[in-house]
């Protein structure tokens, strides 16, 4: 059954974001956008999460943390890179300490650019992530490896 799509729980991690994108993530939880109507819950616990929502870029300090959170999430799981920083490094791309987007460390399934991303874009991106999540679940149910990137 496709319960997976109806109950996506997210974990949000702030890489080296400027906090712009994080404020927009929190805006999604407010009464105006209320993502809970899609069953989305911000869990704050990788072991409970289905979607890894990550903002900001990768640097030497956080690459272990990002990898660690990703590894702790049970399959099936998807990664949504929020904001141009998480997609490619954005305006910080050329900085001496920045290595680039999240795909430098973990497989990213959905790229949601924007600086900062708008709540509408975030919701849109998460809905796209649900499609990937469902695909991975179906593959897992068929006994295949969910890790294969779509």
């Amino acid at each position, binding site marked *: *059954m496709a*319960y*997976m799509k*109806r*109950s996506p*729980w997210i974990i949000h991690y702030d890489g080296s974001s400027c906090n712009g994108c994080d404020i927009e993530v929190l805006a999604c939880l407010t*009464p105006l956008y*209320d993502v*809970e*109507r*899609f*069953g989305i*819950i*911000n*869990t*704050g*616990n990788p*072991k*409970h999460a*289905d979607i890894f929502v990550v903002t900001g870029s990768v640097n030497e300090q956080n690459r272990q943390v990002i990898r660690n959170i990703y590894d*702790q999430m*049970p*399959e*099936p799981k998807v990664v949504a890179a929020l904001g141009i920083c998480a997609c490619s490094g954005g305006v910080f791309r050329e900085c001496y300490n920045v290595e680039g987007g999240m795909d430098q460390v973990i497989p990213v399934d959905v790229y949601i650019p924007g600086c900062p991303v708008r709540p509408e874009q975030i919701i849109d991106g998460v809905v796209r992530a649900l499609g990937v999540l469902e695909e991975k*679940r179906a593959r*897992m*149910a068929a006994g295949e490896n969910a890790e294969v990137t779509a």
Partner: protein
Amino acid sequence: MNVLYAIAFLVLAPLLGGLIAGIDRKLTARMQGRVGPPVLQPFYDVGKLLEKEHAIVAISQNFFVLAYLVFIAFSGAIFFAGGDLLLVVFALTLAHVLLVLGAFAATSPYSFIGAERELIQLMAYEPMVVLAAAGFYIATGSFSVSEIAAFPRPLIVLLPGIFVGLFYVLTMKLRKSPFDIATSHHAHQEIVKGVTTEFSGSTLGMVEVAHWYETVFLLGLFWLFFAWSPVIAVIAVAILYLAEIFIDNATARVKWGFALRSIWAVTLVLSALNLFALQFFGGL
């Protein structure tokens, strides 16, 4: 007949409990000015958890959580079969101790704090639950749930102190503010979620289902106060639950020390007064 009631509880309680949880979430969202999730959302959540990979931190935690679910269901089944109220109370306590052991099974600071908070919670409400059983006995002369339920006079009149004390504790049992110190329905990113930190997938699903069983059982316990008239009982229990949702949204979480002290003070004073009055006036 009694066995039938027990089986009916085992089958129907998760459905009813999940539905109550869904209505609870919807009403909570409306009180906060949000649209809120579908009413069936709790079922989707548990269905989803069953579809997830079974990641295990310590193998023993699965047994503890399974035993937690079994004992919660067992105590509810005994209750609805009209069994011994003391047995129900002790099975319920054992169930929560098993949950604490499950949280302690993984060496994680979060689940340790969560387990300790769950123990504090157990300490806070346990005296009241035992006193309630004693109150029912003094009022009706029996610990048997079926005899208490068949008592011809309204128990709410004989046991008002016990009722208020138990309602005070209900907030904590339903994991609602201001006493949601061990786990909460809302604070997903906070330390109060500690007890379930290391559970995932179907193990977490079992904790949810156990909570549904417990909700139905608790509402059944309050039913006893109004059991002389089923219509009034249904209305009263519904009002009690709505009041809990309102209290949950209108109050902030208190510190565990205050929760413990206030629960002990309120419940012990109220039930002691109630029990003394009952002894002296012989239930009139």
